[in-house]
């Protein structure tokens, strides 16, 4: 491409983008602008509050009457839930001790601490306030313990807790429990109390050193491979299995001793809420973006742009750019507010891209604003779920990495993100977004934009418009891989809590279905739109091309090997077992899927060359064959 041509493309795209901004600004009335400002302010406030000191909803909701001389006074001051007032303000007579005190009728107080240290409550909120005060006392005491110079004296018994991945087969390792129970007191007693014995061991958990002698032993490091927090770091656990990688380094799991009552499973609530802030504006922006694309279609307004020197790609790029840049700006601003780093921005960007890509293709397929509303709500719900739910397990399970929001959570927790993890999380989003735009641009032309066809017919058109001979039959299944990957990951994410006996067969069939559709839908579209001669020979050849293309694309999914997902039972069901080191097995593992994909794709293609019904029949046969193959492989490997 010559520099002049490139300059022309950039120039026209920029003009359309500028115009889109000017045009959209003209459609926003004062009321809408006010609503937008309020919305941004609300999101900003929520972000600030959570980032700063939580939501603050419970601040000073109770009043406690307590003397400044009382040892409970500091507790009340320390707790944000309590507002301390002088006991003299609430009592009428007596010396403030339990036996003599009488509270005034008009006194607004929930808890009273007498001068002799007795605690009582009154009023409707009294009981709840009393419980809260008791928790505040415990929390206050915990802080005092933490500040104690002699930690061994403060915490004479140390129990190290290590969270292990859940074994869905039912044979759950009980590292944490055993560790607690078997504490054999091997006397390591490292000073910071973080020693976890053999650390990455999934089951024995024998290393929870007890320490009652107050020593601050230093033998915690050398012979111990343990890591604190949530699971190991991918080291061998002794039985040859590669452990699920460390998703984050478990920094939510405190490395400081604490009281048993305050221990809870790792759940990065605050980081998760902050990460969610990135997704919120995307849900609003796609509404405006979908409307602008739809606007071009419902009144045939896009016709005049299509007849201009600007190409479809330039028009779409120009119309999309302001929304993408707007989202990038919002993401950067949120990141700055919540003190996220570049990783948070880099992780949120592909989410924005997929939100816009999916909305674009949805708006190109919808026949009315009513349908568009349905499409955008579906995209919002699906993508928000896809990104948010896995991120909940950010500190627990590798599966969390299917969502780029997990990277945001990790970033907010100050954890390093490896390149493989970034590619694994964001790859499907980048590629998925790109393919959505590619398909949408395929129908961004007069014949499709303004035609009132059923959505499935438009999908077939969009795919058929991308078919340019046999080479495209090979390439298209590679482009569909992100969707296959994302669908299978989602299936894994949704089913990994289901008992293995149910989850694995389900995933086998789902995975086969998704893959067979990806291998055959473009071949069907080609036959349905008369791109190919409907002969058995052509069908067989196209099927072989498609199967081979998918095989090549599938190999790209081996990026999962970098993060170890196949070691989860459900991961194996979806992606197959991890590749062996044996050359023969490696060759079989390499070539058998090629044969499978070619054969099943040919079966579907033969059906597709006949009719729609023929395609459905061929597809079902291909799915069954594929599922049987998957089952066989897993049985063999297992």
């Amino acid at each position: 491409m010559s520099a002049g041509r490139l300059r022309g493309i950039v120039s026209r795209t920029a003009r359309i983008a500028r115009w889109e901004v000017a045009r959209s600004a003209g459609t926003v009335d004062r009321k809408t602008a006010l609503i937008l400002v309020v919305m941004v302010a609300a999101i900003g406030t929520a972000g600030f509050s959570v980032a700063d000191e939580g939501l603050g909803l419970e601040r000073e909701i109770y009043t406690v009457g307590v003397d400044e001389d009382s040892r409970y006074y500091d507790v009340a001051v320390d707790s944000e839930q309590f507002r301390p007032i002088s006991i003299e303000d609430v009592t009428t007579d007596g010396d403030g001790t339990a036996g003599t005190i009488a509270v005034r009728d008009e006194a607004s107080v929930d808890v009273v601490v007498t001068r002799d240290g007795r605690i009582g409550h009154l009023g409707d909120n009294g009981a709840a306030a009393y419980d809260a005060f008791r928790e505040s006392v415990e929390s206050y005491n915990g802080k005092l313990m933490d500040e104690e110079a002699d930690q061994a004296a403060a915490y004479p018994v140390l129990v190290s807790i290590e969270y292990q991945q859940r074994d869905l087969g039912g044979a759950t390792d009980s590292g944490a429990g055993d560790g607690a129970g078997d504490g054999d007191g091997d006397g390591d007693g490292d000073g910071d109390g973080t020693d976890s014995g053999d650390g990455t061991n999934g089951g024995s958990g024998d290393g929870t050193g007890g320490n009652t002698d107050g020593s601050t032993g230093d033998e915690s490091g050398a012979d111990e491979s343990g890591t604190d927090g949530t699971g190991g770091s991918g080291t061998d656990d002794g039985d040859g299995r590669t452990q699920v990688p460390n998703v984050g380094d478990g920094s939510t799991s405190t490395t400081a001793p604490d009281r048993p009552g305050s221990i809870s499973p790792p759940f990065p609530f605050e980081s998760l809420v902050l990460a969610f802030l990135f997704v919120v504006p995307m849900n609003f922006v796609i509404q405006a973006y979908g409307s602008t694309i739809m606007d071009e279609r419902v009144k045939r307004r896009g016709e005049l742009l299509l007849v201009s020197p600007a190409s479809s790609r330039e028009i779409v790029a120009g119309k999309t750019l302001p929304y993408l840049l707007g989202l990038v700006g919002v993401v950067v601003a949120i990141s700055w507010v919540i003190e996220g780093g570049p990783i948070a921005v880099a992780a949120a960007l592909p989410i924005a891209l997929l939100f816009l890509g999916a909305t674009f293709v949805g708006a190109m397929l919808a026949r009315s604003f009513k349908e568009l509303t349905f499409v955008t709500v579906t995209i919002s719900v699906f993508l928000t779920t896809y990104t948010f739910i896995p991120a909940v397990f950010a500190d627990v399970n590798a599966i969390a990495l299917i969502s780029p929001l997990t990277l945001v959570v990790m970033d907010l927790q100050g954890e390093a993100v490896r390149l493989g993890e970034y590619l694994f999380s964001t790859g499907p989003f980048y590629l998925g977004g790109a393919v959505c735009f590619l398909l949408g641009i395929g129908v961004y032309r007069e014949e499709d934009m303004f035609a009132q066809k059923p959505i499935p017919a438009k999908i077939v058109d969009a795919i058929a418009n991308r078919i340019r001979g046999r080479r495209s039959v090979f390439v298209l299944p590679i482009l569909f891989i992100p969707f296959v990957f994302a669908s299978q990951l989602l299936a894994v994410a949704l089913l990994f809590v289901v008992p293995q006996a149910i989850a694995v067969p389900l995933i086998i069939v789902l995975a086969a279905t998704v893959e067979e559709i990806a291998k055959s839908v473009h071949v069907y579209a080609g036959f349905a739109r008369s791109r190919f001669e409907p002969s058995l020979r052509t069908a067989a050849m196209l099927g072989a091309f498609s199967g081979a293309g998918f095989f090549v694309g599938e190999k790209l999914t081996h990026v999962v090997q970098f993060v170890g997902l196949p070691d989860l039972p459900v991961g194996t069901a979806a992606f197959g077992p991890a590749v062996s080191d044996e050359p023969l097995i490696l060759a079989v593992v390499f070539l058998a899927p090629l044969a499978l994909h070619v054969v099943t794709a040919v079966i579907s293609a033969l059906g597709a060359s006949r009719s729609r019904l023929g395609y459905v029949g061929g597809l079902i046969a291909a799915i069954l064959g594929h599922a049987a193959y998957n089952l066989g492989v897993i049985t063999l490997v297992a």
Partner: protein
Amino acid sequence: MAILEVDGLRKEYGDFVAVEGSSFDIERGEVFGVVGPNGAGKTTTLKMLAGLIEPTAGTAVVAGHTPGEPAMQRRLGFLPEESPLYEEMTAIDYLEFFADLYDVPRDVARERIHDSLDRLDLEHRDRKIGNMSKGMQRKVAIARALVNDPNVLIFDEPASGLDPLTTNYIIEFTEELSDEGKTIVFSAHNLFHVESICDRIVIMNDGRIVARGTLEEIRDAHGGTEYHVYATEDGSEGLTVAGSPIDVSHENGQVCHVVGDMRAVDAIRETVEAAGGRVTDIQTKTPSLEDIFLEVASEPVEAET
């Protein structure tokens, strides 16, 4: 010299053939009319020429370029049947945006836009398009088709749905553009307009061109001038024209003979007088484009000879 050449243009939508093998040439500076009933394939043909629709088969060359090529789009002004304008923009903003998209320098664009709007007599140029009347919006749409100073203009129903005053204004403006040397492909349901401004015409029906040429050529091909001979007696007995009996009807007690040849009129007169009658009136009837259109549109479609 042909500025627009169409050869065997065909468009299929699945099993439906919208345009079947259209071929024609348009000379530089010519106003070329495309007429036909709804669904005849006029708009599809014009959109294929504008590069909006890809033909299934056949070729079109506009100003030396294939439709859809950016170089061709720069030389073309297209006015679709509807005015798909951006109602939230002012007329000036809208036109300046399109001028910018066609790489027209800003000062040139401004001058050209105001010149077009002056000629179209459009006031309230800073008003939002959505607040303009339909006629004003149509004028903005025409001005948009002119922002790039195109060689070829494709006007699809330019006066559709407008009041007679605005319609006349737009027709006169189209004539002015033609006088300036622009080549105009013009489609309209109002055949009077086509008749009045087009140099040549094609009539389409069911996706095919069923008649073509100048108005005179089409008239000749579809009956030409008719002579209605009114007499007191039937003078058709024993007479034939080109081997067919003469068409005779009775009106107000008189016999009306319809023939297309002046020699037949003389023969009828002689026959009538021989029978003791007399010829009372002879009327010359020239079919309008509308008459030809109605005749053609009601006939089963056959490929033109």
